[in-house]
């Protein structure tokens, strides 16, 4: 059976990479004593498919992972057992049973929404102004990790200052398709902030 786990990733797992999350889920499920289905072939691997990767340092309210299990088990029972076996920093929102042949998670997602908070209140000064300046730009050229320049502007669907909730006071919606992936930290850099100035939380992907 294939299940989809929706979960929150919080501060204490902020520095665990997307790749490491694969292993964390595998081990959590094994601790809960469920048998994971293995892929066929010369090097069988446990069948676990992560959704949209969450960049290192981000936290999230809405992450998803698909897991194939050998046996058919009640999803609420899985949730109860799994909650006892996940590390600090994970919280399960819900578990659903899904059609084993449905499409991989990453192909389902088009848009992600983020909230950002500053560590230091001084950074909020002139925020509105710099956001509207940025949005007026025709193009925002940023450099990818592979040194290729790209235009960030069309990837920003929404960006505005919002009423602070737990100190998070910037909202943004970015394109999140496989070849058109807007990174929330890049938006913050374009606004002129350094990496040590803010914390990004993913709110939702759809």
């Amino acid at each position, binding site marked *: 059976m294939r299940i989809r786990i929706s979960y929150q990733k919080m501060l204490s797992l902020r520095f665990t990479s997307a790749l490491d999350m694969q292993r964390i889920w595998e081990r959590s499920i094994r601790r809960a004593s469920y048998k994971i289905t293995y892929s066929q072939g010369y090097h069988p691997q446990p069948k676990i498919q992560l959704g949209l990767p969450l960049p290192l340092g981000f936290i999230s309210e809405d992450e998803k992972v698909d897991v194939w299990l050998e046996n058919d088990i009640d999803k609420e029972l899985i949730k109860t057992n799994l909650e006892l076996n996940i590390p600090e920093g994970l919280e399960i929102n819900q578990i659903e049973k899904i059609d084993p042949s449905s499409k991989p998670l990453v192909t389902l997602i088009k848009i992600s929404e983020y909230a950002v908070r500053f560590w230091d209140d001084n950074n909020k000064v002139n925020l509105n102004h710099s956001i509207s300046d940025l949005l007026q730009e025709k193009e925002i050229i940023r450099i990818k990790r592979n040194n290729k320049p790209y235009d960030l502007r069309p990837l920003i669907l929404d960006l505005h200052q919002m009423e602070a909730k737990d100190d998070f006071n910037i909202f943004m919606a970015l394109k999140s398709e496989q070849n058109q992936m807007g990174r929330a930290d890049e938006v913050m850099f374009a606004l002129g902030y350094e*990496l040590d100035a803010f914390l990004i939380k993913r709110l939702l992907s759809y």
Partner: protein
Amino acid sequence: MIFKTQQEIFDLIDRDLITIQKPGRYIGGEFNQVKKDWSLTSFHVALAFPDIYDIGFPNLGIAALYNIINSRSDALAERVFAPWFDMESLLRKKKVPLFSLESKIPISHFDLIGFSIPYETLYTNVLNMLDLSKIPLHSETRQSDDPIIIAGGHSTFNPEPMHAFIDAFVIGEGESVINDIIDCLISRKELSRNEKVQALGEIPGIYVPDSEHSTLYTDDPKNSLLPPMVTKRFHKKIDSPIKNLLVPNISVVHDRIAIEIMRGCSRGCRFCQAGMIMRPVRELSHDNIINAIKESVEKTGISEISLLSLSTSDHSQISEILHSVNQLSDDYQIDFSLPSLRIETFDENLMNSMQSKRKGNFTIAPEAGSEARRSAINKPIPFQDILETVEQICLKGWNNIKLYFMIGFPGETDADIEGIIDLCREINTIGKKILKGRFKLHVSINTLIPKAHTPYQWATLARKETVEAKYQILKDGLKPLKIKVNYPDYNLIQLEALLSRGDRKISDVIFTAWKNGAKFDAWREGFSADIWQNSIRENKISLESYLYEKRDINQQLPWDFVNTGVDKSFLKKEFLKSREGKTTPGCFQKCSACGIMQNLQIDCSKARIGDI
């Protein structure tokens, strides 16, 4: 928050960690981590490993102490590792002290800091961690509120090079003595720091350096200044193995369950320090091993298991163990690996029981290139046997073979070096014939470091010109094979030899080197030959006399006051037999009276199977 300085630590974690490499190294939070209430616990121990988290996390010594201390109601243990270069810069720039993974408490607030130092190239990192904790480096300059600094691990079997920085050394197996240390310090809570340290010195197996004794190399055979004898502490019986039940949140080396199935080794290879200092052999029984595997898998969810020991195939129940592990692996969806197999005991039966497993690397350590030299070092494996084993393992489907060799043995000739080339060539031919292009051979060439407490402690280190000439013969000879060969930097070999064979004076060399920037000496990113050479010069140390001059076999050595249980006279006999190319049988073939039985009051054949 318990201490005011913690606010800076929390800010650093929130804001700055994201700017450095692998920030997950510094925040703990692993599944099964033990985090006790600081204020409700009276005694606080920081377990320190002087290398990065990735390397130190799997360390079983730390895991054992962590479990023992945290199972006490009156004490807690938290972990700390050496920060990598980027984290060190960040800590220094922000003036934040080194802190523990669990409660994020500055190390200087702990009562006791226990360093685990398995090898000598970690010494400068110990100094660096003390400095980052704002603890005075020299024991004599520490104040009443500074923590007590202890150290243990294989390197401390010659404690003197670090004598200036460590208040008390643990000689032997830390699990056997840690409770005595904590009891001693708790019951003397009101005494002065110095009185506490002196009290530690009364515990068997603890060495507290003082200024009345010294361990300088001397020609006086009755060196009267040598400290009183300290006999190592050890577990007579290993009931249940050390389990590291913590599950890392980031990638680490050896990210698998490690079960130590046997401690000590019965072989007596003459270059091997572990084989001498870890006597007697103590096996964990089949039932205990299987229970430990089950418990570890259930509690960690980790699916890779490694059965550890110095010579795994020598375990008296190895067939039964592998049989049971094979059965378990289907039920539990686990994979297992067996490092350190001996050709003599790795037979077809064992190979078959590993048949279904994923085939990774297979390591063979002939050590020397000729049969004569292998006899001299007491690892007498016939040429033909090595080739037959290689053929068998290739037929069973292992693609990657690693070969370990050493050069620089006493009496070594060019023929021995040619022998290494011949062996590699033959093995490569066999592998290629069976596995074609899939076969890969890696060769590692180390140089003998004449370690303390081994029969070769009287041998000299091979000189740079000699080693480089031998490297050249090997490079020329191995070139046509197009295989990967490792040739370690001679400067690093020389440093390791100096630190492991050092006396009291070497503390100054370590200090000067650290002051001039030495750290992470075991890392390419860290080691600087220039810094060390300058420090050696500045402190007027003659490498000639420490490493290259022939030693009289009756001369006192700086570690002679450390009693490993093996008699010095046995080591002497072994050294002389090595010259004659004579072998000594393994302990369970025939006891050669190394002294362990009398000195440690133990019956080896009973200790082996835990019948004590």
